[in-house]
């Protein structure tokens, strides 16, 4: 008689949105593994149609409470792309600054309250806080520094409103930036301590080589600059995303699954960025990474928490450098007139590459929208990790297996709410 073990996590905790996991082991052999997304579809691509091209940053920012800046920047760069306007100089640097805020805020939340509890044996950040007060307080202060940058540059912390096509609605004052610099000076030590702390966690040793994909730029650690590159040789302009990658509907999931057309699964996110762009990271972050024993191209997905900490330190240093070099531009924004055509924009959200494509007409009305969030690009890789982790831990009892499987999903900091924006309506008429 065959023996079947089923590991089921009906509702994944400490991820954004509604997802579940089901894995089967039959007679000691791996069966099906399914990372299911049952969060209802949110139809954002559909509701962007017939809206003004200038509304895209504010509409898409509502997709996510933790990475609205990524949505805004991907949207505005796509619109500026189709309209033939380049936003550079200080306005570009201010966009990088607000992006630093989002990295600090999002990474600190994930490291301290969502992921570290897995490594330390707690079932929540709240339970962990009771035993590790000083550490969690440090995480909260760090997160609040990120929130503060988003508030000052974005107008408010949640769903910021100050980013627009062509630049910003309002420029920060010198005094506001100085206030941020004071906070960032303090946060620098906290970010460094974070790298040291996470590198000492008990990190499971599992390797699974994967093709890493990220934006890559010769001049800087890319937030929204450069070309899309991969560790397997992809090197394309952002506008070629659909030529090289494809999104597919999978029955069990309300999110599309993306893959490289020729090869299949790939991964985006901090580990991918570090693999491709580590030479451009701020020197103190590079040193912290080396001291932590981190090697670019790490194939152990459980080390993503260390990369996230290194990126947090990078973002703090980068933000300080931007403020230090800042000279106010002539105006808060450039005029952007609509031009009929197709525009492409991409940025490196905290969870990975976020690609937007819009078709607009000559009045500036959006005809078509395509939004490809990082979590849908990572789904195949998440399932492959789960399979690998299962294979390496088959001898463990179910509760321990479930623990490490959930932990391995959180390696990706998945944002399920972001992944369920698509509209695919099928009507069968007989």
């Amino acid at each position: 008689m065959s023996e079947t073990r089923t590991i089921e996590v009906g509702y994944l905790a400490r991820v954004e949105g509604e997802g579940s996991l089901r894995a089967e082991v039959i007679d000691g052999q791996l069966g099906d593994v399914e990372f299911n997304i049952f969060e209802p579809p949110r139809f954002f691509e559909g509701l962007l149609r017939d809206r003004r091209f200038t509304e895209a940053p504010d509409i898409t920012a509502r997709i996510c409470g933790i990475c609205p800046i990524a949505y805004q920047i991907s949207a505005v760069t796509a619109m500026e792309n189709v309209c033939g306007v380049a936003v550079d100089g200080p306005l570009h640097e201010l966009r990088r600054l607000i992006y630093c805020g989002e990295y600090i805020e999002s990474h600190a939340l994930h490291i301290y309250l969502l992921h570290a509890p897995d490594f330390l044996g707690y079932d929540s950040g709240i339970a962990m806080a009771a035993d590790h007060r000083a550490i969690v307080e440090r995480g909260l202060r760090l997160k609040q520094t990120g929130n503060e940058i988003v508030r000052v540059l974005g107008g408010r912390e949640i769903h910021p409103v100050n980013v627009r096509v062509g630049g910003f609605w309002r420029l920060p004052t010198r005094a506001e930036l100085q206030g941020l610099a004071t906070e960032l000076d303090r946060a620098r030590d906290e970010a460094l301590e974070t790298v040291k702390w996470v590198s000492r966690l008990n990190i499971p040793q599992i390797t699974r080589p994967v093709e890493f994909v990220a934006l890559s730029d010769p001049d800087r650690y890319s937030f929204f600059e450069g070309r899309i590159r991969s560790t397997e040789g992809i090197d394309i302009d952002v506008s070629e995303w659909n030529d090289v990658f494809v999104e597919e509907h999978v029955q069990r999931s309300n999110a599309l699954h993306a893959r490289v057309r020729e090869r299949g699964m790939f991964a985006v996110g901090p580990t991918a960025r570090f693999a491709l762009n580590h030479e451009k990271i701020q020197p103190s972050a590079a040193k912290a990474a080396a001291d932590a024993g981190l090697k670019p191209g790490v194939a152990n997905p459980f080390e993503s928490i260390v990369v996230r900490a290194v990126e947090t330190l990078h973002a703090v240093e980068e933000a300080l450098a931007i403020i230090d070099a800042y000279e106010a531009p002539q105006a808060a924004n450039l005029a952007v007139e609509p031009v009929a055509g197709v525009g492409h924009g991409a940025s490196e959200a905290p969870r990975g590459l976020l690609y937007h494509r819009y078709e607009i007409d000559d009045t500036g009305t959006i005809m078509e929208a395509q939004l490809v969030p990082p979590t849908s690009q990572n789904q195949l890789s998440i399932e492959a990790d789960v399979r690998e982790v299962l294979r390496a831990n088959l001898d463990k009892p179910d509760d321990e297996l479930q623990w490490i499987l959930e932990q391995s999903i959180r390696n990706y900091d998945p944002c399920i709410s972001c992944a369920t924006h698509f509209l695919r309506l099928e009507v069968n008429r007989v």
Partner: protein
Amino acid sequence: MSSGVRVIGVGNPTRGDDGVGPAVAAEVARTVDPEVDVIVSTADPSRLIERWESAESVVLVDAMADCAAPGRIAVFDATDEPLPSDFDAISSHGFGVPAAVELARSLGRLPKHLVVVGIAGSEFEGIGLSPVVEDAIADAVQAVMEVVEHA
């Protein structure tokens, strides 16, 4: 009435009935003793811990979703007990008011006395409160004032 009482209206006025916390706080500010500090928080709930720092007694006013008839008012003393889990209905990225309260409890950073006044909402879209929630403001203000007077 002791000093160090703070009323915090939590919510986003551009998200329908979620704006009832700030609306109640505005009414309280009009009538309450000026020594009582009344503020509004539209920020990430994890920052509530900073907002109640230095206050001995805090009254949080927030909207509730999907847990009671719209307009119903519930008063919870969270000083020693966690909030009911169904209070945690509307938040960004899974970090709502109950999580902030419990995190503060773990960190030893709760005020000495924390009461949450919840108002059940019905519509969480667009600007402005639904009529039933609008009608509940006066009772919610009364509930807040009772807590403040006994603080």
